């Protein structure tokens, strides 16, 4: 690996980092705007044209607010909580293949930070680390509501990770690899995994909602019962980090879903377009398609949020343990039989 490659990788990392931050920023704007449209309202429209500058105003507000650390909170952990949450949210994007290999000015490079052969496991590891941010923050706040919120978050994430993992196993049986790049390549030309694993996809998306703490599984920050949940005691940018981490998680899980099940950067008529636009522009079109899919998923996250009410906690646990896990296991068995006999 030469110096040029290292520079290219660094540039790619910075770009992906910036993109995920900007998308997270504008997800807050999109969420409010979409919520407004679903409720026959207009939504934020004062800061800039159509309220485009609203996220900047929100960010500025977050930075300027007073930073409060409660007297009885543990200061180190109190700061470590949100930092860990946003850190784990950001590093998940490292293994996602954003596009095919691009050739530009004699150089070829992958639109992927690293193609490790256990990509999915890496993502699972990062996702399960994410719960530590919530857990530590809730614990360090020394507040019963925060603690209850954190406990809920932890038990919810652990429960749903199991069925998420089981739904992935069926996918792995079909694709035969753990590398996200190879899974994306595998789906080239209408072999999208969602067509082979519809049940697996439904299981995965339900679990993704639970893992990102989105409605209908947003019990950790259930306002009616727990004030603000695990971030009750947080203010200023530390609160901002938690909220930001949620949106980055949503972006990453949308990207994972698009890559695993919806063909990643593949789209119909891809080879024809590649042949006609050359090796520089062609793969970038694929990247644009991937982002379109990601935005559709983010829209779906928000659409569901403004449609469905929250589950009760026992219903949540019932759904996780008594429905999703048996379904996932049945899905594995059916997939296994299908692979064996056809």
């Amino acid at each position, binding site marked *: 690996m030469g110096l040029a490659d290292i520079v290219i990788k660094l540039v790619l990392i910075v770009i992906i980092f910036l993109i995920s931050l900007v998308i997270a920023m504008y997800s807050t704007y999109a969420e409010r705007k*979409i919520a*407004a*449209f*679903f*409720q*026959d*309202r*207009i939504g934020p*429209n004062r800061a800039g044209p159509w309220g485009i500058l609203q996220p900047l105003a929100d960010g500025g507000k977050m930075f300027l607010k007073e930073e409060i650390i409660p007297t009885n909170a543990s200061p180190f952990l109190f700061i470590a909580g949100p930092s860990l949450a946003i850190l784990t949210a950001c590093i998940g994007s490292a293994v996602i293949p954003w596009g095919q290999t691009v050739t530009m000015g004699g150089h070829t490079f992958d639109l992927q930070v690293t193609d490790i052969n256990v990509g999915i496991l890496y993502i699972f590891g990062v996702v399960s680390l994410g719960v530590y941010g919530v857990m530590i923050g809730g614990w360090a706040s020394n507040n019963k509501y925060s603690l209850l919120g954190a406990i809920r978050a932890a038990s919810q994430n652990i429960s749903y990770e199991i069925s998420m993992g089981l739904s992935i196993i069926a996918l792995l049986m079909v694709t035969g690899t753990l590398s996200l790049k190879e899974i994306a390549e595998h789906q080239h030309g209408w072999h999208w995994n969602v067509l082979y694993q519809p049940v697996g996809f*439904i299981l995965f998306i339900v679990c993704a909602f639970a893992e990102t703490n989105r409605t209908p599984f947003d019990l950790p920050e259930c306002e009616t019962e727990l004030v603000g949940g695990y971030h009750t005691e947080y203010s200023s940018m530390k609160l901002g980090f938690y909220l930001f981490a949620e949106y980055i998680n949503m972006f990453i899980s949308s990207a994972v879903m698009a890559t695993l099940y919806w063909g990643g950067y593949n789209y119909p008529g891809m080879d024809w377009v590649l042949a006609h636009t050359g090796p520089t522009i062609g793969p970038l079109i694929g990247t644009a398609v991937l982002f379109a899919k990601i935005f559709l998923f983010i829209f779906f996250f928000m*659409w*569901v949020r*403004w*449609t*469905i009410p929250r589950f009760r906690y026992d219903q949540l646990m019932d759904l996780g343990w008594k429905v999703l896990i048996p379904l996932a296991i049945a899905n594995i068995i059916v997939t296994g039989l299908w692979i064996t006999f056809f």
Partner: protein
Amino acid sequence: MESLTNRKKVLESKPLNFLERAYLPAIAQGLAITMKHFFKKPVTISYPEEKREYSENFRGLHSLKRDENGKERCTACGLCALSCPAEAITMIAAERQKGEEHLYREEKYAAVYEINMLRCIFCGLCEEACPKEAIYLDGPHVESDYLRKDFIYGKDKLVEAPLNQ
């Protein structure tokens, strides 16, 4: 027992069938409903750029009227102040001097006429009481302000603009 109105509805609580228990069809139904709203025209009126129409009999800010020659109609009889249930109106009467005939219609006029808009309940009894048709609640709503003293509106704010000759 037979109900008297015959409108009693008997609700059956059947156990849910498989599709109902699977949640997903119901969720899809809900998503379809919200999607319908997504494309509906928003009902928001973006105040202050757009203003909602007042109804025809809306009682808003008072105005002291002038007659067809541009003279103030009010003769400071005090009936409006008397009728006011909130005691929002005060006035000081003065006699019309020579040379002021083009300003005031009657021989007596209100030198000071004040309405406290924080007391006023916009009931419209003053306009009913007025024998000279001098006061009407036909303006817009009272604007917000920072100080209580600024809500006491004097003649400068209440009297109609003079006619343009």
